[in-house]
């Protein structure tokens, strides 16, 4: 059992404009950064959010021990089917993701 949220300091998500959501994983240290950077792929995130993996942008920022993913919002902000106006709760899905359970 290696949940992303238990491995790192913090996972947060937020809209980056109405059409994108961005997820920042603050690993909090080099070891956690290497674990996440090495084991969490764009494909994992694509599967979790049910999006095509080619739309996902992935950034590794070693200076900050941050791994960041950005993806087009599964539904546009404020659409009739949007359930989270600020996109801030989507982070939880990634925080609860178990790296061992794949």
């Amino acid at each position, binding site marked *: 059992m290696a949940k992303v949220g238990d491995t790192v300091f913090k996972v947060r998500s*937020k*809209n*980056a*404009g*109405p*059409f*994108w959501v*961005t997820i*920042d994983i*603050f690993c909090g240290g080099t070891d956690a950064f290497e674990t996440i950077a090495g084991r969490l792929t764009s494909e994992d995130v694509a599967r*979790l*959010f*049910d999006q095509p993996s080619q*739309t996902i*942008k992935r*950034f590794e*920022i070693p*200076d*900050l021990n*941050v791994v*960041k993913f*950005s993806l*087009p919002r*599964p539904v*546009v*902000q*404020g*659409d*009739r*089917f949007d*359930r*989270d*106006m*600020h996109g801030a*709760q*989507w982070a*939880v*899905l990634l925080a*609860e*993701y178990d790296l061992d359970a794949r």
Partner: protein
Amino acid sequence: MQSNTSNQTTRVLVPTGALGISFAAPAFARGVESKPDVICVDGGSTDSGPYYLGTGTSKYSRAVTKAEWRELMIARDKAQVPLVIGTCGTCGADASVDWMLSITREIAEELGQTVKVAALYSSQPIERVQGALKAGRVTPLVPAPEVSEESLAECTNIVALAGAEQIGAALDTGADIVLAGRATDTAIVSALSLRRGDHAGAAWHGAKIAECGALCSTDPTSGVILLDIDREGFTVEPMADDANCTPHSVSAHMLYENSDPFILYEPGGHLDVTEAKYVSLDARRVRVTGSQWVPSDRYTVKLEGARIGGYQTTIMAVLRDERYVANAREWTEKLHRFVCREIESRMRLAAEDYDLEFRLIGVDSVLGALETKPSNPAEVGVLGVITASSAEIASEIGKLINPYVLHYPLTRDEELPTFAFPYSPAQSERGALYEFCLNHVMTLDDPMEAFRLEVVEVGHG
């Protein structure tokens, strides 16, 4: 405006990340005493959704906006430097600039100030954007909704995001106060510095770091940030006693609400911070150099538009009965099938004429089909969301389904259950549902051709 000499800096005071969310008075007073060259504050964003642009209204109350703006106007009078607000009234439509102008006028009269105001209007006439689309001067970003002359005609508001050129033009009028319509968050902070010939990469990067106020510090709620931009870089310092800026807190701010943490597109070019270096000057201040501004061949401004996507009515019931809680999904699926048949037979509405969703609060109402966590709640809220082509139809559907949402039984052979309605009437009329319908840029030959600048004197005297 005077050009920058080698040791000159442009000092920008940012009181808070957004007008309406408050700031610490002592920290702001310290900022004003530091003799800023300009005071800049953001007045909006798309963050709260399409309703505000759709209606041209502010998210924050007039009372709070006025109270905070009053503090800034008093400080401006004391410091005798320009006060700039961007994206007035949440959405930055013309109506919101006029709303802010009326507040400014009231305060000036109450304080006995005479103030020269430059109002920069960002709303776009539909015909202008339709013409630009026809001329191939409207370019989609990724991902962009389909756009046509017809879809543009449905927009209740379209705004273009002003950049540093338009804010600079407003400052050039010599105005005491600039009330800008929709503008990039960064442009209001960078404009004066760019006009004075500071390092362009530093001006844009510093603006991006400072535009959310103290979010770039270790005490995000303290609000006030002081930014010094010069010919080589910028220095950022929080004004609250217990706040610090660290290389981590400052560089991490590039992640915030940014899909790309290294590149930021602006009218006229983009900021590239890949090579930026962040160094602590002391416990509180961070110095940043190495940011690059890359001018673009075309001058483009981003467009935002909202239109009515339907009309909504909601209804909520809460299930507390153990059996219904355990079978909430099955219950709502049965209920949904049943009421859809009723809507078809009683109202002659086919499935494509409306949307009806039941969201299970306590089960998966936030993540829907993406939810991975099994839940075992004590109670489940059933939120029915109805979207239809008119408010009357949405309301009528709400009334039609009301008795079933209250009483629908899980099985045929049981006594009619009654669930908890939290209020009467059980349904809420939400009115128009607005949706964002543009993620495009528009090419301009002259930055001012899509913006309007008006200068007025308000207040006493």
